[in-house]
């Protein structure tokens, strides 16, 4: 009986510890990163992008033009799909979602493959340098 209880307690402790470590893995530079993104369902991804949309549509934000598409015909679903493309490369998963958003903005604005790869590399470096 005591052994079973001890076993359960240890299992719970291990679970809590791994959950806590998992939580750290989904953050980079204090922001949700690609691991958090890929583990969210489709609707969850839309909700994240929707929150950004609500702020950028409602308020004037400094530097938001580097991140948010200035074409209002682009849908939230399309933005989420392009972010998915960025995180399809597992090497990009420690980049914050906001970094991926700046890449998506460049891609949707017509940046060429070399410029996009250069930006992705810069974002990977930025995420790797600050833990």
């Amino acid at each position: 009986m005591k052994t079973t209880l001890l076993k359960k307690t240890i299992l719970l402790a291990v679970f809590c510890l791994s959950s806590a470590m998992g939580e750290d893995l989904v953050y980079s530079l204090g922001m949700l990163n690609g691991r958090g993104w890929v583990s969210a369902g489709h609707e969850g991804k839309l909700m994240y992008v929707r929150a950004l949309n609500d702020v950028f549509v409602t308020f004037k934000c400094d530097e938001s033009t580097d991140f948010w598409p200035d074409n209002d015909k682009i849908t939230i679903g399309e933005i989420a799909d392009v972010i998915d493309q960025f995180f399809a490369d597992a090497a990009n998963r420690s980049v914050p979602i906001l970094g991926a958003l700046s890449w998506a903005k460049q891609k949707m604005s017509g940046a060429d493959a070399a410029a996009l790869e250069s930006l992705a590399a810069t974002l990977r470096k930025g995420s790797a340098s600050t833990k």
Partner: protein
Amino acid sequence: MFKKTMLLAVFCLSSAMATESLYQTGGVYNGRGWLADTVMEKLNYIYGMSDVARNFKCESISDLWPGSEKATYMEIVQIVDQFYADASNRAVPVLYALGWVKMKLRGDTPAALEKFAASLRRTAVGLAK
């Protein structure tokens, strides 16, 4: 048969568009959409809001974002749910409801909260026009 298929397609499209507009007030997500979401989806909205509030200088966002109060994202989600438990608040954008959450977390009185909620309802009416 073709006619029926076309009618069905038009019906589906128009009902999807109607749902989308019901879930937004002035192009911004509102309480009807919020209440239709799962807890995880709501949390993702709060994550997005947090990332933007902490990394961009946006006018008025500091008045609304409750991140400076001591609360977990799950608690923020639960207090937003409380705000929308009153059906008359459902047209208020979630973004503004967060201002009510911030006030509640910092200990504002029920009267102040109700006064602010009423002003948000008026704002929602203005946004919907």
